[in-house]
C-alpha cells in the first residue's frame, strides 16, 4: 500500500482474497497451509486451486498487504522447504476495515430481520 492509497481503495475484498488474508491473521502460512485453512474454515465450500491462490498472493504482495517471510520446513509435510507468507501492518488495517464493513452490513440486515436470532447485534452500540 503506497502513501497515496486509502484503505477504501482496497475494499470490498473478494471472498477468496478475504479468506486468504484471514488465514494469515495471527499465523504465517505457506501456500498449501493457506489452502487447507480456507477449506477448513469454509467447511469445504471454498477449495482454492494453485492458479487462483498464487495469482491472489502475487497481487496481495504487489499491494503490500502480505509479504514473504523466510523459507522453512513444515514438519507435518516432510523435509521440503516452503515459502511462508505473513500479513503486513497495512494488510491488517485493510482486514479490520473490511471486517467492519461486513459487520455493518450484517447489522443492517439483522435490523430488517433478515438474520433470525441476530437481533441483538442490530442494536446500535
Amino acid at each position, binding site marked *: 500500500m503506497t502513501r497515496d492509497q486509502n484503505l477504501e481503495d482496497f475494499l470490498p475484498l473478494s471472498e477468496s482474497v478475504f479468506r486468504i488474508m484471514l488465514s494469515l491473521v495471527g499465523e504465517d502460512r505457506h*501456500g*498449501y497451509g493457506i*489452502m487447507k485453512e480456507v477449506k477448513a474454515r469454509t467447511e469445504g465450500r471454498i*477449495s482454492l*486451486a494453485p*492458479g487462483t491462490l*498464487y*495469482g491472489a498472493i502475487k497481487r496481495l504482495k504487489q499491494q503490500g498487504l502480505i509479504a514473504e517471510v523466510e523459507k522453512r520446513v513444515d514438519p507435518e509435510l516432510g523435509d521440503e522447504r516452503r515459502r511462508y507468507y505473513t500479513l503486513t501492518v497495512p494488510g491488517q488495517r485493510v482486514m479490520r476495515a473490511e471486517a467492519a464493513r461486513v459487520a455493518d452490513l450484517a447489522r443492517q440486515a439483522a435490523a430488517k430481520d433478515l438474520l433470525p436470532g441476530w437481533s441483538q447485534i442490530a442494536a446500535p452500540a
Partner: protein
Amino acid sequence: MMDDIVATSDRIYRLILNVYPRAFRDEYGEEMAQTMRDQLREALVDRRVFGVTALWLKVLLDTARSAFTEHLKQERRVSFNRRGLGFGLSTAIGFPLALVTFAYWLHPAIAAPGFVLAGIGLYGLYERLEIDTTAMIATVWVGVTLGLYGTADIYLSGKFFGTHAVPTAFVLLTFGLATMGRVALRNKTFGPFSFIPLAVTASGGLWFFVLLVGAGEYRDVMRTSGLLAHVALWFILGALLWADPPGDKDAVRAAKEERQSTAESGVT
C-alpha cells in the same frame, strides 16, 4: 503406486505451467508444483483415484481461467494505455463503418459517424505513434488501400460495390489495417491482447453492416470468399501479433536520437 501417481502428475503439471506468463512462472511455478503435489497426496489418501481425478478437473479449469487472467494483467502492466486503446477502437469501429456506409451510399447522417470515428482514431493513432517514418508508412498504406479500393471498383464495374473487385478490396483493406495494427503494436499503442479483440471487433462490425445493409448484394461465391478471407486474415494476424511481442518504443526512440546525433557530429 502412490508415489508413481504423484510423480507422473507432477511432471504433467509442470508442463501445464508453461501456459502461464514466464515472469509469473519463474516466481511461483515451483511453489505451485509443490502445492499441487501436496494436494495430490491429500486427495490420494482421502479418496484415492476418484479424488485425484476430481482434483485434476478442478486444477485444469482453474489453470485455464487464471492463466488467461495473468496474461491480461501482464499485458496491462507492460503496454496497456487507455488513450491508445480508445483511438484503436475508434479506428477499428469507425473505419469499416465509414467504408460500408459510404460504399452503399447511405444517408450522410448514417455515414458521418463512421467517418468522424475513423478520423479521430487515425489522428489519435498517428499522434500516438510519434515516430514519423512508421506512422507515415501506416497512413500511406491506408490511403493507398482506400485509393485502390475506389479505383478498382469504379473502373472494373462502373459503379460501387458491383463487381468482383470487392473481395480484392477487402483483402487490400485488411493488409492496410494489418500494417497499421502492426506499427501501432510495435510502438506500444496497444498490446497484442487488446489488439485481438480489436481485430475481431473490426471484422464483426464489417460483417454486421454488410449483412445488415447488403444482404441482397452478397450472393455470389467470390464476394462471400472475399469476406471470409477478410475475417480469416484478421484472425491469422491476431495470432501472429500474439506471438510477436510489441517492440520497445523508448529503445526505438533512443536509437533514432543516436542516429541523429551521429549524423550531426559527422556534419560538424
